[in-house]
């Protein structure tokens, strides 16, 4: 288990380093100074670029080394052209993203599993067909279209009711002490976008349905029925646990997709979280911020896959008995 954790941390390091190098090659921070109305002197630009360790005249590996030794001392660098330390901004942004994602993701997983289980039990009935087709349409709808359509729908509802029910202008507008109702009004539409989005209810329900169908045909469920359990009791006491095992590993893969989807949702509903920052950082050629974001994302993805291994072991006695975690 510990060795696997070490391998995962090594992967995080390699992926983050490669992102830093890649971003250093593709982005051109010096370009920002070309478009400014008042031209700075050449030496001023050079010293500015050096402050952020993005001077293209410094060899790439020297820049990488400077960045790496900074990171080793907990210094992630400064946000391009603002002098703010990245680590501060990172914590703030992660908080925003977390508050945006947590409700929607939990709801999406729980509802998705529920819909999938019901769909499998009622296979080829009308409601199974309906939920299958709805899931197909949702999976084919890009989140940027969905989120904008929800924003449009919220606007129509606001006009229809003659008062503002839904906000789509960020986390809150009165300040961090905003009341619960106001926060809920701001959270409603983006949460709906996450639940209905690509890493949402449709996605989980499809996989849960097929995992459940595999279990339904198994011998141990027939035994459970044969000893007199009703169909539903047999499912919930014996079947569901087994059908949840593949979902644990599956969720780890979904994590990256969730973060990508969140960057659209954050941008459209104007939440200044990690996803929004990633987009802005690429647009501003902020190499250090991109590397920091990539590092955090890699850590989260690896952590969720580690968690999936643990969950897998907890749910599957065969894995525990073998004494090691299989993927």
């Amino acid at each position, binding site marked *: 288990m510990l060795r696997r954790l070490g391998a995962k941390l090594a*992967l*995080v390091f*390699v*992926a983050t380093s*490669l*992102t830093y190098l*890649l*971003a250093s*090659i*593709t*982005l*051109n921070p010096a370009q920002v100074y070309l478009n400014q109305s008042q031209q700075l002197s050449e030496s001023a630009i050079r010293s500015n670029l050096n402050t952020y360790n993005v001077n293209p005249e410094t060899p790439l590996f020297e820049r990488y080394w400077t960045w790496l030794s900074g990171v080793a001392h907990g210094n992630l660098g400064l946000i391009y052209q603002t002098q703010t330390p990245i680590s501060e901004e990172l914590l703030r942004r992660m908080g925003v993203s977390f508050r945006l994602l947590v409700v929607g993701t939990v709801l999406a997983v729980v509802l998705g599993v529920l819909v999938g289980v019901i769909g499998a039990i009622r296979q080829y009935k009308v409601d199974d067909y309906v939920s299958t087709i709805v899931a*197909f*349409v949702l*999976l*084919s*709808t*890009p*989140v*940027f*279209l969905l989120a*904008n*359509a929800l*924003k*449009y729908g919220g*606007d*129509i509802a606001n006009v229809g009711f003659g008062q503002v029910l839904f906000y789509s202008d960020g986390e809150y507008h009165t300040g961090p002490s905003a009341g619960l109702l106001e926060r809920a009004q701001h959270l409603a539409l983006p949460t709906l976008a996450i639940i209905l989005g*690509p890493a949402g209810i449709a996605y989980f329900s499809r996989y849960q349905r097929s995992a459940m169908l595999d279990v339904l045909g198994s011998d141990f469920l027939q035994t459970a029925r044969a000893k007199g359990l009703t169909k539903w009791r047999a499912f919930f006491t014996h079947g569901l646990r087994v059908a949840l095992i593949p979902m644990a590993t599956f969720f780890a893969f979904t994590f*990256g*997709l969730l*973060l*990508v989807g969140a960057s*659209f949702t954050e*941008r*459209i509903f104007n939440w200044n979280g990690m996803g929004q920052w*990633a*987009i802005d950082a*690429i*647009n501003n*050629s902020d190499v250090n911020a*991109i590397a920091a974001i*990539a590092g955090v*994302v*890699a850590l989260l*993805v*690896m952590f969720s896959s580690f968690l999936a291994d643990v969950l897998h072991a907890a749910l599957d006695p065969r894995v525990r008995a073998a004494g090691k975690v299989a993927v």
Partner: protein
Amino acid sequence: MSKERVTPVRATSRAQLVMRRFRRHPLALIGGVILTFLILMAYVLPFFLPYRPEDLDPDYAQSLVGPNPLHWFGTDQIGHDLLAQSLSGLQKSLLIGFVAALVSTGIAATVGSIAGYFGGWSDRAITVVIEVLLVLPSFLIVAIISPAIQGTSFVLLALVIAAFNWMLTARVVRSLALSLRDREYVEAARYMGVKPFTIIRTHLLPNMASLLIVDATLNVSGAILAETGLSYFGFGIQPPDVSLGTLIAVGTSGPSLTSSPWLWAFPGVMLVLTVLSVNFIGDAMRDAIDANSSKGARR
């Protein structure tokens, strides 16, 4: 048993069987009809329209007109016909989707079967590369690369999308190749001195054809979603070229989201229909190839 009672049985090849199961599948029919319709719309309809997407002269008298008999999809801020724009975007999205899907499945098949067949250090190297590439969401990586390919051909965008989309399939191909490697006919070929790449081409890949075809189909919709998503953020197709993603980005920005919804609703519906039809076809194919599935089977 008398001889007269034996009726001649025509042998059905596996390909025929799969084709029949596919044709009987309801999703294949729906998806096929929608996709054919969209492809015809994208490549034939523009010849019959009085507006060309290349007409870049602004026509402010026709600015932001809603859908009407003259402009079926309405017009945008500078009076361009939105139908012509959407069709041009659809063309690009379809082309990028197909190119990226073919390339990505091709990479997956090559890399995965090399790793699985040869084993040893090439397997270890490929596995590590796959692991590293799977750490970060490929959308983020392509977005970081995008500034370097801006202003070049959109085929390059398709290739970059494909370059970061093959890893999961390659893993599956690798494990399939591992199990096929020890089959008798592969060993026989090996002892007869057949070259490794010939074995991969003639014995391994045909045995995975069904997986690869389904994967390529589903990659089409994945690549279309990736391209439009990148274009939505401004990392994909750049003006003056249009994609369904850029059209939706322009249509939903600022007040036009609520004041002129046709700007994003029509390209949006077109995009959803495209992805949906490809997903339908891919799912029907998977059912047709999967021998355990009852859909499309003779009832």
